[in-house]
C-alpha cells in the first residue's frame, strides 16, 4: 500500500488537490451567488442546487476546456515545433512523427510494448494518436458543455431583463461565449509559452520539467 501510494503520489496528490479546490470553488461560489441573490431581492439557493446550476457549471467547464485545450495543443504542436534550449522541446533534429523504429511500433515493437503498438493497421494508428484523441475529445466535450451551461445562464440573465432567450447557435456567436472562452485560453497559452522559454535559462533541481542544473542553456530536449 505504502509502495503504491509512493509510486502514484503525483496523480494521487493532484486528484486530491483537484477535489479540494472544486469543493472550495463550490462553497465560495455558492456564498457569492447567494450574496448577489440577496442584493437583488431574489431567493437564495441551497448548496445542492447551486452545484447543479448553470452558474456553477459554466464556471467549471470554461476552466476545464481551456486546460484540456492547452494539453491537446501542447501534445500536437510539440511533434513539429521546437524551442532551442527548452526541455519542453524535442531535440532540434527530431521534429516530426519520427520513424517506426524510433517509435517502436509494428515490426520494431518490443516484447513488452502495448499490444496495439505491435499489431499494425488501424489499431496502431489509433493507439499512436490515442493521447491526442482522448485529450482533444475531452476538450471538445467540455467546451460544448461550457456552451450549453453558458447559454442557460446567459438566457436567465436576459429573461431577468425582459429579453427573449437565444438559441444555442445564436449563443456561440455572442460575446459572452467568446469572452469566457478566450479569457481562459490566453492564460493557458501564456503559461505554456513562458514555461517553454523560462525553462531554457532557469532550473529546478530534481524536476523532470527542468533540465539538470548544470546543463547548458543550449541543450534542447534534455530533462532532469
Amino acid at each position: 500500500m505504502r509502495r503504491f501510494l509512493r509510486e502514484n503520489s503525483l496523480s494521487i496528490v493532484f486528484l486530491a488537490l483537484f477535489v479540494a479546490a472544486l469543493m472550495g470553488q463550490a462553497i465560495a461560489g455558492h456564498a457569492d451567488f447567494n450574496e448577489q441573490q440577496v442584493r437583488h431581492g431574489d431567493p437564495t439557493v441551497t448548496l445542492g442546487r447551486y452545484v447543479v446550476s448553470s452558474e456553477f457549471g459554466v464556471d467549471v467547464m470554461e476552466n476545464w476546456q481551456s486546460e484540456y485545450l492547452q494539453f491537446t495543443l501542447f501534445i500536437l504542436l510539440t511533434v513539429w515545433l521546437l524551442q532551442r534550449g527548452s526541455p519542453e522541446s524535442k531535440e532540434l533534429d527530431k521534429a516530426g512523427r519520427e520513424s517506426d523504429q524510433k517509435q517502436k511500433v509494428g515490426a520494431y515493437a518490443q516484447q513488452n510494448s502495448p499490444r496495439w503498438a505491435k499489431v499494425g493497421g488501424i489499431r496502431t494508428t489509433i493507439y499512436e494518436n490515442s493521447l491526442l484523441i482522448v485529450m482533444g475529445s475531452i476538450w471538445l466535450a467540455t467546451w460544448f458543455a461550457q456552451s450549453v451551461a453558458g447559454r442557460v445562464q446567459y438566457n436567465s440573465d436576459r429573461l431577468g431583463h425582459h429579453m427573449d432567450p437565444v438559441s444555442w447557435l445564436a449563443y456561440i456567436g455572442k460575446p459572452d461565449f467568446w469572452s469566457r472562452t478566450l479569457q481562459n485560453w490566453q492564460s493557458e497559452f501564456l503559461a505554456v509559452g513562458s514555461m517553454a522559454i523560462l525553462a531554457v535559462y532557469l532550473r529546478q533541481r530534481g524536476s523532470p520539467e527542468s533540465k539538470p542544473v548544470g546543463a547548458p542553456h543550449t541543450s534542447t530536449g534534455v530533462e532532469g
Partner: protein
Amino acid sequence: MAQRFHAALAYGNGHAACDQLSEETASKLEQQEGRPCEKAILSLKIPKGGTVAVRRVEVTSAYMGLAEGSADFLDEGPDGWRISAAGCEPVAADRPYQCQLEG
C-alpha cells in the same frame, strides 16, 4: 400560468389575474395607477385571453410567447411561478421588450 392570467383578464376577473403576478409587479402597478391591482390590471392593454405558442424556461425564469403576438416573462419564487412582466413587445434585437406591465 400565463394562459390562466390572460383568461382571467378575458373574464374581467382582476382578482384572479393579480394572483398570478409577482408581489413586486402587483405592487408597482398599484403605485403607478393609484388604485388596487384588481381594478388597475383590467385597464391595461394586455391580451384578454391568449394561447402560449412559445414556451422557454431557463432555471428560475421563463418566456411565454402568445400566439396573439405579445409575450410574458415569469420568475419562479418561493410561492411558485409568477408573472413579472406581461403584454411585452420586442423593440429591437438584443433590447429589453417594452411591456404594458412590469415589476
